[in-house]
């Protein structure tokens, strides 16, 4: 858990926001996050955020569910408590498929929701710092982390030049009790296709 210093720049237009993001990344500043009132297509691309491994996690959760269901039912009906049901074999695979499917979906969905909460640092009871309340209404809020290479006056004037309508400096708590999953930001490449 650490308190860091951020420069918060507010934009009122997507058309200004996207070039600004490009310039900020090109200048090498670290964007903490961009808060928008609605999902903006292509923003993750523009930010150069590495894709999360949520899909891979989902697959692993699903496979775990499949293995659990098949293994458990198989163990019960072949060795623990074999029963003759309608003259079917003791390991009737087709009859197990629906339950296996349900368990797969259950494991994958619950696991993915929890993983998603972890990746976004959300959980019931967690208080998140709001950088700007109008991010839920009509402003696009870009938050840049201050490091030793990026001091606040420099970043502030940089954002001003890039069309931010409101800029302020805030100190905020970034971590939570599970530790922080840092969103990795790719370095800006010149051949990158913008949206």
């Amino acid at each position: 858990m650490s308190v860091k210093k951020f420069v918060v720049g507010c934009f009122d237009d997507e058309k200004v926001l996207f070039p600004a993001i490009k310039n900020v990344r090109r200048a090498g500043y670290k964007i903490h996050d961009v808060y928008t009132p609605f999902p903006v297509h292509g923003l993750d691309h523009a930010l150069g955020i590495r894709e999360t491994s949520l899909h891979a996690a989902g697959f692993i959760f699903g496979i775990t569910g499949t293995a659990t269901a098949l293994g458990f039912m198989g163990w019960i009906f072949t060795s623990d408590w074999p029963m003759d049901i309608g003259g079917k074999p003791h390991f009737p695979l087709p009859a197990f498929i629906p339950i296996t499917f349900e368990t797969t979906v259950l494991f994958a969905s619950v696991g993915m929701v929890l993983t998603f909460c972890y990746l976004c640092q959300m959980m019931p009871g967690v208080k998140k710092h709001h950088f700007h309340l109008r991010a839920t209404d009509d402003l696009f809020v870009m938050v840049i982390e201050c490091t030793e290479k990026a001091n606040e006056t420099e970043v502030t004037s940089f954002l001003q030049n890039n069309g931010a309508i409101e800029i302020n400096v805030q100190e905020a708590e970034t971590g939570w009790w599970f530790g922080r999953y840092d969103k990795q930001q790719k370095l800006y490449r010149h051949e990158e296709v913008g949206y």
Partner: protein
Amino acid sequence: MNNHFVIPGGFKKWSVGLMIVGALSLVIGIFALHPGAGSHGDNVNSTRFWAVLLQNSTYWLLLVNTSMFFICITTLAMGGWQVAFRRVTEAISSLVPILGLLTLIVILCIVLGNRTDIYPWLDKHHVETDKILKGKAGFLNPTFYTIASILTIGLWVFIGRKMRQMSIESDERGAMDYETGKGWIKKNITWGSFFIVVFGLTVGSTTPWLWLMSIDPHWFSTMYSWYTFASTFVSGISLIVLFVIYLKNRGELEYVTDEHLHDLGKFMFAFSIFWTYLWFSQYMLIWYSNQPEETIYFIQRIGTAEHAGPYKGIFFFNLIINFVAPILILMKKATKRNYTIMTFMAVLIIFGHWVDFYQMVMPGTVKGNPHMSWYEFGIPLGFVGLIMWGVGRYLSKHPLTPKNHPFLKESIIHHT
């Protein structure tokens, strides 16, 4: 890059070559397999001749007709993303008249030629003594079959032509303003919904019953039509993917991006799962209730625990390439955007569902004597050549991008 597709020499050579292979197989088949003999199942080769023709003509016809279904369903859903490659789907659906005619010739030859080895319900004396067939005689009789088939194919051709015509007319009319665009979309929706209703009443229900399920007239499955639909839909999407990738590799279709391919890949993935869902639902219910009149269908294919059936290998091979391969390979985002893997998967899925049709038709017709040789592979190659030729012909005649389509912008900026 211009907006017109010029058929490359290699494409032309391949399409004509494959058509010649198909025609040769047909001609050799006529002489070697004696299609006129043995309508009572005593000559396996004769049955085989018609069974292969039935399998291929219905499969490839339903496959190309899927493109028109895709156009209409996206039109009804007010979808814009597919407009960038809409001409490709139109080109594929322009094959429906030709393949429809071929299918009509094949099935009418079978029905009017009284091929009881293909359709047992054609045997009038047998129907008289068979209680089940007698009960179904109102539906399964040559007159109804003929009229329903002609009507079905005729309606597909008619509405499909209308849909393509509207699209081509939009090229000549110049840019549309808001009101004309609205009127044009409304007209599209009217015809599109008409097609969907017809499609539901044909591919969604009666057509597979008549053409394929009546091969085993004692047996029935309420899943059958949906199963056939899912099978042809996923392979139809694969066909669209193949042509889109081909054109993309030649530098055409400038507005089609990885995003469009990704969405087509999602369709391939989702409908492979949907097909498996129907496959399994049909299989499990019959396996579970274990009633002889229903299990006979699977015993003909897989056999029993003591005697493996002649189609056991194909039956499970079918499940592996149509379910296991797509779910494992197409699951990742990166593979749905990779041209090579998508091409491979599209070919695999088209082949897989062709095998699926093979195991739907053959066990009821040639029964214990399955063949997989020159004739079985020659005929489908001919159909592939025909489809390539027809698609190339349509694409070279019309602009590749419907530049006046009101939703074109939406397609260009499409983003998954």
